[in-house]
Structure formats: structure tokens, C-alpha cells
């Protein structure tokens, strides 16, 4: 009987202390962590929109749209939102900025990806291209959204809604186009119905 009591007391005591310690620790680290997240978010938004003074948040059922505005100007400078979907090896998360009329992309930035190093990772940066390592993301600047984004292999794109795929990483490239097409359309529907 003594053993049983001791067992229960000791394990409960350890657990209580653990819970207490972690809770106190959390009040110390949680603000910092939230701050870090906010910083990351703001940096991502700032990258994909032209200059803005502040942004409003517009929540849809599935995402949050960051509406960048200049002081005193009603018309937003652009809309930024996260898009995510399946790439070749895992999830790809992007922050994309579009014009308020959803006619073209302002800029795109990949936030998270786990594509094949050296191939799929070229969607972020391509070190093998010495002149312009950022050639892939740069294709999205000013990319027309109507008709939908198309991916061309091996040739230089002719139309303004086309981008060139990464040689050897066509699936990653196509995944980006698919994610953007689908989700930009969805966000457009939700925003314009507000």
C-alpha cells in the first residue's frame, strides 16, 4: 500500500511541477514568439506589395487578405495573402501580392517548401544561374492572371500569362502555377463578394 501511495504522489508531484514550470515559461516566451511571427508576416507582406503605410485585414472563410493602403487613399495599393498547396515533395506555402482588380500578380515569395534540394528548391533561388539566381520568382512580377497562369517547358514564354518551368523540376513549377491559379481565384470570389 505504501508503495502505491508513493507512486501516485511522486508522479503527480512531478507532473504538477512540470505543468507549473512550463506555464510560467510560456508567459515569458509566448510574447516573443508572437512578435517573431508578426515580424515574419510583415516582412513577407512588405516584399510582395508596393509601398504602403498600413494594411487592413480581411478575413475570408479560409484565409486572411492583407489590404495594403496608403494614408488618405481609399483605393488599396494591393492585396497580399498566403497560398498553400502540395508541391512535389511536400507543402509549398507562398505569399502572393496581387493588384486590387486581380488582373496581375505584383510579386510572389515562397515562404515554406521541402522540394528536392538543387532542383525543386530553385523555386526560391537558383545558385546555378550566376547572372540571375532569382529568375524563377521574378517571372511572377507583373504576370497576367487572366487567362490562368500557364507553364511552358524548354521554350521562352511568349504570352504574358506564361512562365518557364525549371528544367528537371517541372512538377514543382507546375505545382506553383496550380496553387496560385486555384487560390487566387478563390480569394477573388470571396473578396469581390464582400
Amino acid at each position: 500500500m505504501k508503495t502505491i501511495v508513493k507512486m501516485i504522489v511522486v508522479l503527480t508531484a512531478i507532473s504538477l511541477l512540470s505543468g507549473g514550470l512550463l506555464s510560467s515559461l510560456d508567459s515569458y516566451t509566448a510574447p516573443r514568439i508572437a512578435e517573431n511571427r508578426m515580424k515574419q508576416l510583415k516582412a513577407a507582406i512588405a516584399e510582395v506589395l508596393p509601398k504602403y503605410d498600413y494594411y487592413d485585414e480581411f478575413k475570408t472563410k479560409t484565409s486572411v487578405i492583407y489590404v495594403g493602403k496608403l494614408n488618405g487613399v481609399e483605393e488599396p495599393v494591393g492585396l497580399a495573402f498566403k497560398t498553400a498547396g502540395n508541391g512535389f515533395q511536400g507543402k509549398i506555402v507562398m505569399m502572393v501580392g496581387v493588384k486590387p482588380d486581380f488582373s496581375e500578380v505584383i510579386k510572389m515569395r515562397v515562404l515554406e517548401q521541402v522540394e528536392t534540394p538543387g532542383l525543386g528548391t530553385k523555386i526560391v533561388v537558383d545558385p546555378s544561374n550566376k547572372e540571375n539566381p532569382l529568375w524563377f520568382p521574378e517571372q511572377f512580377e507583373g504576370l497576367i492572371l487572366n487567362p490562368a497562369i500557364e507553364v511552358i517547358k524548354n521554350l521562352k514564354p511568349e504570352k504574358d500569362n506564361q512562365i518557364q518551368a525549371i528544367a528537371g523540376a517541372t512538377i514543382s513549377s507546375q505545382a506553383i502555377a496550380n496553387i496560385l491559379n486555384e487560390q487566387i481565384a478563390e480569394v477573388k470570389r470571396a473578396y469581390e463578394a464582400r
Partner: protein
Amino acid sequence: MDLTSLVVSMASMGGLGALFAIGLAIAHVKLHVEVDPRIDMVMGELPGANCGGCGLPGCSAFAEAIVAGNAAITGCPVNTQDGVDEIAGIMGVQAEVKEKELARVLCNGGNAETAPKAIYKGIKTCLAAHLTFGGDKLCKYGCLGYGDCVVSCPFDAIYIGDNGLPLVDEEKCTACGNCVTACPRNIIEVHPVSHNLFVFCKSEDEAKYTKLTCTRACNGCKACQKGAGVEKIEMVNNLPRINYEVYGVVDEVPTTKCRNNAIGLIESVKVPVTTAQENK
């Protein structure tokens, strides 16, 4: 610090802890195994070499067998008399005294005495050589000298001498029997120290073969049996088998007519043998 979250954290963690502790307590009661404390005490008095000399897989198995009454206290050949006495005390029985035993190598056919059959380029173990056309020596009963016995000894008590024959360190040997099992030709036997007469040969060949295979081989001439008497030495397959119970302690060899000095007293074998005769 947010008090609510602190209380919730502590309550949930503490609750989980208590819950699991209760679960473990129930398991402790329901799944309890009764262990005889004497087993651990006997284990403490065993050498802990896990050599298998007792015939059981390891010292803990032997301790369990002793406590269960399934093994003799003197069953561990490695244990000292003090250890045996302690175990007897734990089990509350009379201690027995067991005579010291040693491993004896019953072959005198080393490199100088034997004729080779072939050059062996296989795995250098006695077992592998023995399985390969009966080994690389003409005598298919004798020691091959690759040292399986050496490898098997947990006490470093046996080593291959200069002549290619295994030599036993009588201080270290505990008669655990591992070398006996390791030898593919059953050349090594465990005997009490009171046995001092041995036939240092395992060859079942007749004289016309042994004169080709080895200069120290027993050729089955029965001279020793004639000298000692059939009740003391029995001939089995051209080899003398000594009946130690009947013979008792021996103070001289039964015959001087053993041509190759295959039979002898154990002291005489300690002197290294050099032969004048070369086998071709």
C-alpha cells in the same frame, strides 16, 4: 503571469500524472510476479562468467535452478569452495566438496609428429578444416591446431604451443567444458586431477596406417591391455579405454612396450616432446 493558464496547466498535467500513476499502481498489483529473494543471493555467490559450464544458459539460470532444487550446488565448475559453501548456507543444506577437474588434451600429434595431407587454404578454424575432406593432416582423428579450443575458453586457460598442440594452464582452467564442445574431434576431455594415466591419441587406425600418419599415434597393439589386464583397460576400435574406477591412482605405466609412447602418466607429458624421426 496568467493565473488561469497556470492553474489549468498544473491541473491538467497533475491530473494526467495522477491518472497514469493510478494505472501503474493497478498494473503493479495485478501483474505482480513473485520472485524468490534467494535467487539474487545465490547469484551473488556465483562467479558471473556466464560460461555455460553448469550446462545451463548463464549464471542467472543456474541460480534459479539451484533455488528450485533442480541443480546441484556444486554444479558450477568455476566456483570456489567458499562460493559453494556460501550457497549451501543460503539454501540451508550441507556443502559438498567437489574434486578439482581439469581439461586434458589427448593428442600428441603436433607439427613435428604428424604428416600433412594437403595445403589448406580455407577458413582457419578446426571445424572448417575438419569438415573439408577431413582436415589437412593424414591422421583424421588428431589435433588440427587451428585453435577452436583457444577461442572458446572464457578463462584464457588454453593456448596453442610451439608444436601446434593446445596446452592447458592448470591454474586458470576451471573445467567448464567449452573447449571439449569446441573441439570437432573430441580430443579434449575433462578429468578429475586424480586421473593421471591417459592415452594421448584418438586414432582408430591400425598400425599400417598410423605408421604413415603420426610418430606418436596409438597403433592398437594392445600391449598396455596385456600389461594392465582387461578389467583395467578395454580396447574399443583400436584404442585403449582406461577404466579409472577400477584402476585407481597409477604410479607407473602398464607397459614399456608402447612403441610410440602413446600411453603415459600426465607428468611425463608436461615435458615438451621433440622427435628424432621426421615423417615424409
